[in-house]
C-alpha cells in the first residue's frame, strides 16, 4: 500500500481557499477524535481464515509447535460452532472469510536504531494519541530508549497496532521488581512454562464462538506476571489500535497475579473511521492466586460508526477472571463508549474462599450503536462477595442492554451479592434493557438486585440551564453525575479521560 495524503493533510492545503467550508466539514467529522488512519506500509496475510492462516500466524510469531497445535485445535473446534444469537443485537451476518487476520507494520520487520529510522507515520500516530515521546521511542523499538529520562508519572505501555505488539515500555524497570510485562508473542517464546500453564485455563478453547476464534488466530496481545508478594511499581497499560482496513484485531491478554501480589492494569482502544465494519474479538484471562489483587480498567473507544450506523467496530470480547486463591480480589471497571456493536461480559469466577469480585460499568450508546454488556459472578467459594454497579446510557437510536448472571452454588455458603443496574434514556427513539439471571442454590447467601430506568430529570436540566450552561453541557454534567460511582472506581488519569469521553459520546444527542 502506497502512502497517500490523508484527508486531514488535504484540508490543510485548502485552508486558505474556503475556511468556512473546511471548518464545517471538520466540525462534522470531528466528533470521533481518533478517527484518522495512518498510511503505513503493512504486511498482510491473505484474507480469510483457514488452517494455513492459523499456521502462518503462528509461524510469523515464531511460535513453538505446542502453540501451533493449540491454535489448530481451537480452529477445528471453531468450525463446528455457531455464532451466538441470544444477545439483543441486530447486525448483518459477518463474513469471516472477508477479513484480514494478520497485518503488521512493515517497518517493524527489523528493529530501527534511532527515531530517524522509524516510519514517521507510526510516530505521528502515537503523537496524535498523546503518548509522550520517550514512550514513543520505546514503542518504536529504539534500542537504548529505556535509559532516556522519563517525564511525570510512570505508566508502562504495551501498544498493539493492528495485530502486533509494537513495543512495551519500562521493561527494564519492571524487571527489577520481578514483573514480567511483554507482548504475549514474546512470552510464548521466553516464558513458555507460564504460558503453557495458564493460557486457556480461564477461557478454554471450547468456551464460546468468539473466544475460540481468538484462540485460533490471535496475533498478539499482552502478558503480565506479578511474582509473589510484589506490588507492581507502576500502572501497566495496553493500548490497542486497529489501523488497517478490513482487519480483524484478535488480541489475547493474560495476567497472572501470584500469591499476595497487586497490579493495576489499564486498557485503551481506538480505531480509524471507515464505512465498513471491522471485527474485534479479544480474550482477556486473569488468574489470581491467594491474596492477589487485580484492578482491570478499560476505556473502550473504538470507532462507533457514523450517525446512520455506517462503519464502526464489532466488538466481541471475552474477559474473565479466575479468583483461584483464597482472599483474592478482582475489580473490573469499564467505560464503553465506542464500537458499533459491543458484546462483552467481564466475569469473575470466585473459586477461592473469601474471594471478591467487583464490576463497575458505564456503557454509553448513541446514534445507531448497540451494546449488550454486563458481567457474570459465579460464587463457588465460601464467604465470597461480589458487587455489580452498571450504568447504561442510551441516546439517539441506540440500544443498550445489561445482561448479567449471579450464581450462588450450593457450597458458596454465606456469600453476598449486590447488584445495581441503572439506565438513563435520552430521547424517545432509543432503548434500555435489563436481563439479569439470578440463581441461588443455598440459603445462607444473600442476593440483592435492583434496577431502575429513568430519563434526564427536567428539574436538574432546568437548574443547569438557568446557570448558563447549554443543553449539551448540562446533559454531560448530569450523565457524569449519574455515572459517578463508576467513574470513581477508575484510576485518576483514566477518570478524567472518561469524563470527557462521556461528554463527547453524547454530542448531538439532545435538541
Amino acid at each position, binding site marked *: 500500500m502506497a502512502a497517500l495524503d490523508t484527508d486531514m493533510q488535504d484540508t490543510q492545503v485548502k485552508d486558505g481557499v474556503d475556511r468556512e467550508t473546511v471548518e464545517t466539514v471538520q466540525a462534522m467529522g470531528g466528533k470521533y477524535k481518533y478517527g484518522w488512519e495512518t498510511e503505513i506500509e503493512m504486511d498482510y496475510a491473505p484474507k480469510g481464515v483457514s488452517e494455513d492462516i492459523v499456521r502462518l500466524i503462528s509461524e510469523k510469531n515464531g511460535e513453538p509447535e505446542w502453540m501451533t497445535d493449540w491454535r489448530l485445535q481451537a480452529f477445528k473446534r471453531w468450525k463446528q460452532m*455457531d455464532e451466538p444469537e*441470544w444477545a*439483543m443485537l441486530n447486525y448483518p451476518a459477518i463474513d469471516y472469510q472477508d477479513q484480514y487476520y494478520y497485518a503488521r507494520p512493515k517497518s517493524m520487520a527489523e528493529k530501527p536504531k534511532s527515531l530517524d529510522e522509524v516510519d514517521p507515520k507510526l510516530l505521528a500516530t502515537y503523537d496524535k494519541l498523546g503518548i509522550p515521546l520517550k514512550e514513543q521511542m520505546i514503542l518504536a523499538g529504539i534500542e537504548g530508549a529505556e535509559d532516556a529520562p522519563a517525564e511525570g508519572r510512570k505508566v508502562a505501555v504495551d501498544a498493539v497496532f493492528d495485530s502486533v505488539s509494537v513495543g512495551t515500555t519500562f521493561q527494564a524497570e519492571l524487571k527489577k521488581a520481578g514483573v514480567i510485562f511483554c507482548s504475549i508473542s514474546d512470552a510464548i517464546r521466553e516464558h513458555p512454562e507460564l504460558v503453557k500453564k495458564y493460557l486457556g485455563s480461564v477461557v478454554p478453547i471450547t468456551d464460546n464462538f468468539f473466544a475460540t476464534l481468538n484462540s485460533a488466530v490471535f496475533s498478539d496481545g499482552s502478558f503480565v506476571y506479578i511474582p509473589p508478594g510484589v506490588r507492581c511499581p507502576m500502572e501497566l497499560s495496553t493500548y490497542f489500535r486497529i489501523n488497517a482496513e478490513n482487519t480483524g484485531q484478535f488480541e489475547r491478554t493474560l495476567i497472572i497475579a501470584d500469591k499476595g501480589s497487586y497490579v493495576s492494569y489499564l486498557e485503551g482502544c481506538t480505531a480509524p473511521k471507515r464505512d465498513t465494519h471491522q471485527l474485534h474479538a479479544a480474550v482477556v484471562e486473569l488468574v489470581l492466586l491467594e491474596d492477589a489483587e487485580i484492578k482491570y480498567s478499560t476505556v473502550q473507544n473504538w470507532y462507533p460508526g457514523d450517525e446512520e450506523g455506517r462503519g464502526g467496530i464489532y466488538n466481541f470480547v471475552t474477559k474473565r477472571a479466575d479468583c483461584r486463591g483464597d482472599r483474592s480480589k478482582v475489580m473490573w471497571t469499564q467505560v464503553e463508549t465506542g464500537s458499533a456493536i459491543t458484546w462483552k461480559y467481564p466475569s469473575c469466577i470466585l473459586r477461592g474462599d473469601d474471594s471478591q469480585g467487583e464490576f463497575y460499568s458505564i456503557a454509553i450508546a448513541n446514534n445507531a450503536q448497540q451494546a449488550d454488556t454486563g458481567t457474570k459472578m459465579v460464587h463457588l467459594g465460601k464467604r465470597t462477595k461480589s458487587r455489580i454497579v452498571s450504568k447504561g446510557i442510551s441516546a439517539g437510536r441506540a440500544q443498550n442492554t445489561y445482561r448479567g448472571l449471579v450464581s*450462588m452454588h*450450593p457450597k458458596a455458603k454465606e456469600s453476598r451479592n449486590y447488584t445495581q443496574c441503572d*439506565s438513563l*434514556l*435520552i*430521547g*424517545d*427513539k*432509543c*432503548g*434500555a*434493557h*435489563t*436481563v*439479569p*439471571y*439470578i*440463581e*441461588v*442454590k*443455598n*440459603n*445462607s*447467601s*444473600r*442476593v*440483592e*438486585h*435492583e*434496577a*431502575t*430506568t*429513568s*430519563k434526564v430529570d427536567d428539574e436538574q436540566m432546568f437548574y443547569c440551564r438557568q446557570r448558563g450552561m447549554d443543553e449539551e453541557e448540562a446533559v454531560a454534567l448530569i450523565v457524569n453525575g449519574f455515572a459517578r460511582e463508576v467513574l470513581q472506581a477508575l484510576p485518576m488519569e483514566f477518570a478524567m479521560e472518561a469524563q470527557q469521553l462521556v461528554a463527547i459520546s453524547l454530542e448531538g444527542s439532545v435538541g
Partner: protein
Amino acid sequence: MAVAQQAKQDLTESRITALDLPQGGVWGNAARADALARLRAMGLPTRRDEYWKFTDPTSLTQVAAPRAALFEAKDEGPIFDGVDRLRVVFVDGVFDPEQSDDLSLSGVEIERLSDAMARDIHWAREFYGKLETAGQVPVVRPLAALNTAFAQDGIVIRATGKAEKPVSIIYLHRSENSDAILHHVVRVEEGAELTVLENGPAAARFNKCMEISVADRGTFHHLRAQGRDHERRAATHMFARLGEESVYKSFTLTVNGVLTRNEHVIELTGDDAIAHVAGAAMGDARTHPYHHDDTVFITHDAERCESRQVFKKVLRNGAEGVFQGKILVKPGAQKTDGYQISQALLLDEEASFQAKPELEIYADDVKCSHGSTTGAIDETALFYLRARGVPRETATDLLVLAFIDEAISEIEDERLANDIRVRLQMWLERRRRG
C-alpha cells in the same frame, strides 16, 4: 441443532397424535385449526428453550399425564366457602352441571364453551385464541397454543354491568390419571366489573388457559388458590388485553404441587390502564418435590399506564422457586410506571431460587424499576421474637407470614385477603404440629 429440532418435532407430533381435536361450530373449528398450525410451527418446549431454562417441561409435554394421588382435605373446609358466589364446577376437566349453580347472574352472561362455539354469531369468537395468538410474540408459549387447539371444555363469561357476585370456578380431581385441558374466555364490557375466583387441583395434569379482554373503564379481579394437593402438575396461562382506564388485578396463592408454571401475558393497550399481578408461593418438598414458576410478561403500549408485579416465595426442604418477569415498554408508551419485585425466603440449605427479572424499554419518559432479593430468614428478627419467649418454630412462621403479606395485601377485597391469611396461618400451624 438439527437433532434437537427433530426431537422437538417428534415430541410435538406424538403429543398431538395422542389427543383428539374436538369438533363443534364453524369458528371454533377454525380457531382450533389455526392453533394447531401454530403449535406445529413452534413445537413443544424443552429444557433447551430460553424460557424453560429454569423449569423442566417434560412432565407437561409427555403423552400421558403422570399419576397423581387424590387429595382430600379432611381437616378444613374448601377455600372461599364463606363467600357468596356463583359456583361453576369442573371434575377432571369436565363441566359438572349437577354440582354447579344455575349459570344466571345479574350483569353477567355465562355459557359453556361448547355451547358458545355451537353458535355462529357469538361475542367469544372475537377473543377465543386471539389474545393467545397476540401473546405468542416475542416469546412463544406452545402449551397455550396446544390448549387452544385441544381444550376439552371451559366457560365463557361476559360482564355487561357490575356482577352481583364473584364467579367461582372450582376444579375437582377424581381420577389419578386425568389430563385436563380447559380454556376460558372473559370479556368485561365498558365500565363493567367482574371478580373470578379459582381453586382446586383440577386433575393429575392441568393445562389451563384464560383469555381476558377488559374494555375501557372495566374492572377485572382474579383470585386463585392452588391448594395442598402434592402431586398435581399444572401449566396455566392468563392472556389479558386492557383498554383505557381499565383495571386488572390478579393474585395467586400456591401451596404445594410437584410442578406449577403460571404465566401471565398482559398487554396494556389503552391509556391510563392498571395491571397488578401478585403471587405468594409456599413450598415444602419434604415428602414430594416442589417446583413453582411464575412467568410474567407485561407490555405497555399506551400512555400513563401502571403495572405492578409482587411475587413472594417461601421455600424449604429442597423446594425450587422460579421467577421470570418482564416489563416491555413500547415506543411511545410515555409516562409508564412499571414496578416489579420478586423475593424468596430460603428456609434451609436445600431450597433454591432462580430469577430473571427483565426490563425492555423503548420510551424515555418512564419510571421503571425492579428488585429481586434472595436470602435466609432475618436472624435479628428471629432473635427479637425468641427473646420475648416465642418458640423458634412459631417465630419463623410469624416472619414467614409477615414476608408473604406484602403480596397478599395486593388483594383489594379485604375479606378475601383475610380468607387467604387465615388459611395460610392454618397450614403453617398444622405443619408445625405434624
